[in-house]
């Protein structure tokens, strides 16, 4: 149990630290006129994030449609054990899809956070090198 608590706390602390640093860097970057092309890069990043989210949702819709087709009929369940297995499969498939989608969404959120943080760091480094 202790491991669960310490691991959860460690991951949350890292995420919070990263979020604070990103916020701090955002304020720092916004405090001076943006570098040429910076706004375009931010928009590109937002657009890419939106496209990944849209792609995920298209995939999820496809997965739920397949699940719906599987779950809509119990015609093949011609014995009690088969019926029990089939009902169990419907529930397990739904649960597996929810888990997979939660994981995929979490990965995308992580990716957006890391990517934006990385981009900010590079912008600030470039500004420092430019002496402005």
């Amino acid at each position, binding site marked *: 149990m202790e491991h669960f608590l310490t691991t959860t706390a460690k991951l949350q602390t890292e995420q919070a630290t990263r979020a604070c640093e990103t916020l701090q860097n955002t304020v720092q970057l916004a405090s001076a006129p943006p570098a040429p092309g910076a706004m375009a890069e931010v928009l*590109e990043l937002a657009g890419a*994030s939106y496209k*990944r989210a849209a792609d995920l949702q298209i995939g999820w819709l496809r997965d739920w449609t397949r699940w719906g087709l599987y779950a809509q009929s119990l015609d093949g369940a011609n014995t009690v054990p088969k019926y029990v297995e089939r009902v169990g499969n419907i529930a397990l498939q739904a649960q597996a899809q929810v888990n997979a989608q939660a994981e995929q969404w979490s990965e995308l959120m*992580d*990716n957006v956070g890391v990517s934006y943080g*990385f*981009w900010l760091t590079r912008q600030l480094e470039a500004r420092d090198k430019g002496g402005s």
Partner: protein
Amino acid sequence: MFDHFVSPLPAFETDGRHSISGLSSGAFMTVQLHVAHSASFIGAGVIAGGPYRASENYRAAATTPTSNILNALYVAMSPLTEGTAPDVDHLLALARDTAHIDPLDNLADQRAYVFTGTCDRVVNQLAVRKTREFYEKLGITGDRLMFVDDVPAGHSIITMNPEDSPLSSNQPPYINEGDFIQSHQILDHLYPGANPPAEDAFGAFIRFEQAEFIGFAQDRASMAEFGYAYIPSRVASGNSKAIGVHIVLHGCKQGYAYVDFVNGREDIQNQPPYGARYMRSTGYMEWAEANDLILLFPQADGGDSNAAQNPDGCWDWWGYSAKDQNSPDYYSQNAIQIKAIHAMLTRLSGQ
């Protein structure tokens, strides 16, 4: 020929023209090994892999080792934009400061093949283009660098086998059917003027124990019990000297012992292990047979333990096998897997 024996890895006289290629984690590892031991190679083939030490772009992502994992997943494999893909200048500076690797100048007169499919959703094109840039900046330019980015392939090595997955798919076993054999394209590029591939591979397919090359770090190495080698028939019979050894690195979920982990457990009841498919069905052996090239197939293994967090059986290009997780060495000649694979190469090539 594939017998049931486990043999010691033999030694052969060669011309020393060694090379290496890999897919996915095998491609990332190809670049690490190529750079770390550049004096040993004449070139490398990279299918869907990023540049050297690509898991160390954005240090502030988290504390190490989490930082390396986040970098690996989101910067090195799946960047959202060009501006968030690996920073090659930063990685080159890192490479120049890296101890225990051969001089980078060795790479300047070598050859490289870099491939990225337009449908790859695992290691995307933004990431792999940085590998081309990395090699170009190290001096591999012109016709010595073959960069292919216009094939509508998913994450895979491409064959012409009808049994393999559709070309654009991104799914295990990551071997897709196209209209060319990618291993031949790689080896033709690395060894210009080579003979066409043989109809069949008549040489010896050897199984050897990897443990003797790993040393004391068996629990962290995440390498399987056996590795394999293919000895072309003329070399095996002593009628010809091998031109060199080509190391073939499989990707994640492709080692011979790999079975999928379901809810954290190996699903051995429902799946046979992956087997020798990557070694025997991707065309490497037929090309090697026709050109007296020895093939070495090291094998990674999956593990969901806390000693090595590697459930997909990937090669280590972000640090999971390192003893010191706060300063992981997965990139130098001292890294466990690089050391083991190079020791196999040294043995096999009789050095």
